[in-house]
């Protein structure tokens, strides 16, 4: 794959929770996102995957580390104008389509808010035309523009959220669990829509989710997070066929599959961080085991993983 769109370098996000305690929600993660790809980020709740997404888009100020978007530091000092320019290029789709749309604004105003702020429409007519076009793109129609969010179902609201993100013509979209709150039959509709938009507009996605089968379907590469660390990063297929980190293995072994025969013979692997048994002088870091497949491990483990790898 070609150009790097986003470089995340040793990103840290620590929260002060009072009494001198800090929660290390994201604790030094490094990865790149290439132009036009979908990077999936999975892990259990509380592992820091959502925080990672929110820090990348500057909803939180990073404690340490860098996020480079097209080579430019996202967290650096910015004038209001620069910030505006940057905000246009990066957008977010949220998990809860009920809480993320203002109930007192019409759909047209919700979608056009970005258009107004960035002055992307010359006059009212052009603004409405843009709104109609966006509604059509996400599979809704013109008549929906003057309605309010409560008049829509969950799947339709998520489409409105997507239209809002697309309004300012972004390059990069962070989708934080965009389908978790939706029904199975509607999930497929939204995922298909996201894929279609990616093909047509050359978008880059960071797709955060805990539904592993959907993540595998939509992602080119997948990162697995555990307690604020990125423990494994590989192409979607390689990760499923050759999981190396014991946590990834345990995660994969727990996915319920819609197939009674495999379920009857399922062997679940549990993960205990003690299995690593690291000694104090060992360097634990992201190591490339095979090209494009990174695992957070010690030198000794890296050797074992390499030996076990089967193509």
């Amino acid at each position, binding site marked *: 794959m070609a150009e790097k769109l986003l470089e995340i370098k040793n990103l840290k996000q620590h929260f002060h929770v009072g009494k001198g305690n800090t929660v290390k929600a994201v604790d030094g993660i490094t990865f790149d996102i290439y132009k036009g790809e979908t990077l999936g980020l999975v892990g*259990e*709740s509380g592992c820091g995957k959502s925080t990672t997404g929110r820090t990348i888009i500057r909803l939180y100020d990073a404690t340490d580390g860098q996020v480079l978007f097209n080579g430019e530091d996202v967290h650096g000092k910015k004038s209001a104008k620069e910030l505006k320019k940057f905000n246009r290029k990066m957008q977010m789709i949220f998990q809860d389509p009920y809480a993320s749309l203002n109930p007192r604004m019409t759909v047209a105003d919700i979608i056009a808010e970005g258009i107004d702020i960035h002055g992307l429409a010359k006059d009212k007519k052009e603004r409405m035309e843009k709104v109609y076009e966006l509604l059509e793109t996400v599979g809704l129609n013109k008549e929906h523009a003057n309605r309010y969010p409560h008049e829509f*179902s*969950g*799947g*339709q609201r998520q489409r409105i959220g997507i239209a809002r993100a697309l309004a300012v013509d972004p390059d990069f979209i962070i989708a934080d669990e965009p389908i978790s709150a939706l*029904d*199975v*039959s*509607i*999930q*497929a*509709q939204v*995922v*298909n829509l996201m*894929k279609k938009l990616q093909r047509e507009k050359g978008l880059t996605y960071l797709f955060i989710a*805990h539904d*592993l*089968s*959907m993540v*595998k*379907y939509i992602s080119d590469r997948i990162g697995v997070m555990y307690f604020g660390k990125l423990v494994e990063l590989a192409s979607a*297929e390689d990760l*499923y066929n050759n999981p190396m980190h014991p946590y990834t293995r*345990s*995660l994969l*072994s*727990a*996915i*319920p*599959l*819609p*197939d*009674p025969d*495999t*379920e009857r013979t*399922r062997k*679940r692997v*549990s*993960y205990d961080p003690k299995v690593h048994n690291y000694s104090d002088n060992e360097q634990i870091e992201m190591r490339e085991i095979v090209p494009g497949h990174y695992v957070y491990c010690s030198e000794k483990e890296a050797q074992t993983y390499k030996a076990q790898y089967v193509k």
Partner: protein
Amino acid sequence: MEKILEVKDLEVSFQTYGGSVKAVRGVSFDLHKGETLAIVGESGSGKSVTSQTIMKLIPMPPGKITGGQILFNGDDIVPKTEKQMEKIRGKEISMIFQDPMTSLNPTMKIGTQIMEGLIKHQNMSKQAAKTRAVELLNLVGIPMPERRVNQYPHEFSGGMRQRAMIAIALAANPKLLIADEPTTALDVTIQAQILDLMKDLQSKMDTSIIFITHDLGVVANVADRVAVMYAGQIVEMGTVDEIFYDPRHPYTWGLLASMPSLDNDNKAELAAIPGTPPDLTNPPKGDAFAARNQYALAIDFEEEPPMYQISETHFAKTWLLHPDAPKVEPPEAVKNRMRQLSSTFDQAVLVKEGK
């Protein structure tokens, strides 16, 4: 096998300003002892209302059971009063809810919440109830139960809370356990633990379980039999193998095809079911699924399909099984999983006239 629950032609509706919503429209099923029945369907399909009606937990009014019977151990619970129901709830039938944070009382210790049912239904002394509460916490796999009984729900993690809920539900050795999306709010790893726990406890206590979920993976894991609900009706019912390897209803096909498969590296578009479920204030004429169904026949828009029987245990409510119906090919993803099952009849048999 002994039948523990028989639901016959159950109809439930809710009075709202917009008119009466017919949430459950003629649902019938049986449940045997020690069996797990999974009810699947999307939100608004009536699966939760059905199960809450079995415990008579729906608010009445606005809710109303407009028809049908619920026989629990041969005894109809529909006419029972609130007082009589209190003897059944928690003792004979228990429920596990989806969201453990909102269904546990945040101001009561976990131990006290478990003891409540024991003291009420089994006339235990406080002392004995507490000992039993510790045992139950131990049984559901909570470490250090002696300390945990004195803690409050906020001191528990999500998975631990769900275990505590299971402990409460099992306190009085119920004969029937209704689990309404018990793992939807949990992570996959925790989900797998809770499912294992439920199966383990079921085999020890011989409880029957009604398991409500929209996750087909979970269904394949826990269920003996599956009922697929759509718009307040059961559209297909059968053993877990029949539903996953020989589905007959186009809605079941749609559900199965819309899930990406893990070992399939095919990046083709997912077969989504178009549109949204119908408004049950005015259920559509004919088959409620017709408008979203690519296999819909002309008659689907006119007349509701009757129930057809495909094997001793397999039923489906679709005109496609009518002898004169054209032969259709299910979607690719479903065809790949189809198998010939030995118990299938040569010809689908009409069992009930549609209304």
